[in-house]
């Protein structure tokens, strides 16, 4: 029987091959072999149930579209812009050298040798890494001088679904870690499911669910629930709440403001403000502003309020961090000052496209300590 093919505009039915789709709400393929006959029967059978569901879902999504909602970006990337602006994730101490050999551009394939030494906190280290990346797949492997292997693999199944695996594998028992996560980016929401060190035999591990939904064209709200299940008898959950307010609604639903390319190319003085409330009484608020296309400023305020309890007296602490990033034609400069008396900077100067020199330092005025880092990055290409 030839069923009338309904049109589902919001669904990416065209991109999914029919043989992998078993739910049956797709119109049958014109070729009349056994599989398509089976699918056609399944389709006819499930159509009375699935059609109203799909129809309602489509209309619901359209209704949400009419409010101008946008894709808010993942919960993990909530404070991505400020992390890129601040020095904290880039500063190092001691000396380091990164030698990169680019073997192919598209798809990208490169191997890296990194050396670091004379750090006050970490022992001298050598690391070999290999990276392969194309449009859908990202593979990264690294091994250091102790034989510890880091692995990372991302696979994009479609524009909205990505699965990521990362692992840290050592020969010392109990120090290995594996994390599997899946990102789903809906038209107005993002959902992330993550599990760390899952055990197949008794389902223990650390599991995480995070969800961020756009509620107005400028505001997105969400939550992140952490399920700690270290032993079959113990199960603890804790939930943090997330909010993100942006200066301008996204230019179009297809270009999320959270994508760095979206905000970096924006002409106006765009800003992003976020707040995260964590269950132990930690409130983190950030404010990021793009002053000019080359200057980013970020302010981060972290407040911790613990009431007096059996664990000890109550605590009230807060730290404010102000940082700025300047991008010049051949250099990047980051400067940062915080309310704990720390002042730091990092300059990344590129002398030629293949040679970059890094110098950075930080002074803690209250403790009277300081650290300094020097580095080189050399790239060579076989192309």
């Amino acid at each position, binding site marked *: 029987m030839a069923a009338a093919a309904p049109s589902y505009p919001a669904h990416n039915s065209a991109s999914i091959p029919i043989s992998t789709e078993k739910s049956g709400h797709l119109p049958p393929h014109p070729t009349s072999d056994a599989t398509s006959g089976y699918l056609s029967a399944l389709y006819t059978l499930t159509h009375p149930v699935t059609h109203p569901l799909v129809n309602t879902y489509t209309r619901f999504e359209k209704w949400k579209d009419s409010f101008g909602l946008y894709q808010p970006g993942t919960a993990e990337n909530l404070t991505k812009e400020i992390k890129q602006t601040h020095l904290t994730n880039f500063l190092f101490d001691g000396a380091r050298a990164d*030698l990169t*050999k680019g*073997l*192919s551009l*598209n*798809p990208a*394939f490169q*191997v890296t*040798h990194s050396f670091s030494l004379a750090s006050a906190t970490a022992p001298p280290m050598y690391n*070999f890494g*290999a*990276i*392969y990346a*194309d449009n859908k797949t990202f*593979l*990264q*492997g*690294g*091994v250091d001088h102790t034989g510890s*292997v880091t*692995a990372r693999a991302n696979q994009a199944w479609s524009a909205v679904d990505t699965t990521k695996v990362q*692992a840290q*594998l050592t*020969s010392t028992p109990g120090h*290995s870690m594996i994390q599997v996560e899946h990102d789903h980016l809906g038209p107005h929401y993002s959902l992330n499911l993550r599990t760390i060190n899952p055990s*197949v*035999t*008794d*389902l223990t591990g650390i599991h995480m669910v995070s969800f961020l939904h756009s509620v107005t064209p400028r505001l997105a709200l969400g939550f992140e629930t952490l399920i700690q299940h270290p032993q079959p008898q113990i199960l603890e959950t804790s939930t943090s709440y997330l909010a993100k307010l942006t200066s301008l609604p996204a230019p179009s639903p297809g270009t999320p403001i959270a994508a760095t390319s979206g905000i970096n190319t924006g002409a106006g003085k765009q800003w992003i403000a976020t707040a995260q409330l964590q269950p132990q009484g930690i409130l983190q608020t950030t404010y990021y502003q793009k002053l000019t296309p080359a200057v980013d400023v970020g302010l981060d305020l972290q407040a911790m309020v613990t009431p007096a309890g059996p664990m000890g007296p109550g605590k009230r602490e807060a730290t404010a961090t102000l940082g700025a990033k300047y991008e010049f034609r051949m250099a990047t400069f980051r400067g940062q000052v915080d309310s704990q008396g720390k002042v730091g900077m990092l300059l990344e100067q590129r002398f030629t496209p293949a040679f970059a020199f890094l110098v950075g330092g930080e002074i803690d005025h209250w403790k009277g300590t300081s650290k300094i880092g020097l580095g080189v990055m050399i790239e*060579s290409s*076989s*192309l």
Partner: protein
Amino acid sequence: MALSDETKDRINAAIGVGKNIVTYGWIPFVIYVGYTRSNPQPNLINFGEAGLQWNWYVNSFVSVAY
């Protein structure tokens, strides 16, 4: 879950073997995938940093030999 201890031990042993395979095989795998899919395909002797000198050495040797 209705898994006997014996089954659990077997599953854990299998996971241990799999972990070892990934530990030793992951970086060769990444390099293999990168090498076979690169465009243009890199020269094996040119692989890595030391390869530069190797290549020069081999080329000069070849040019002397002929």
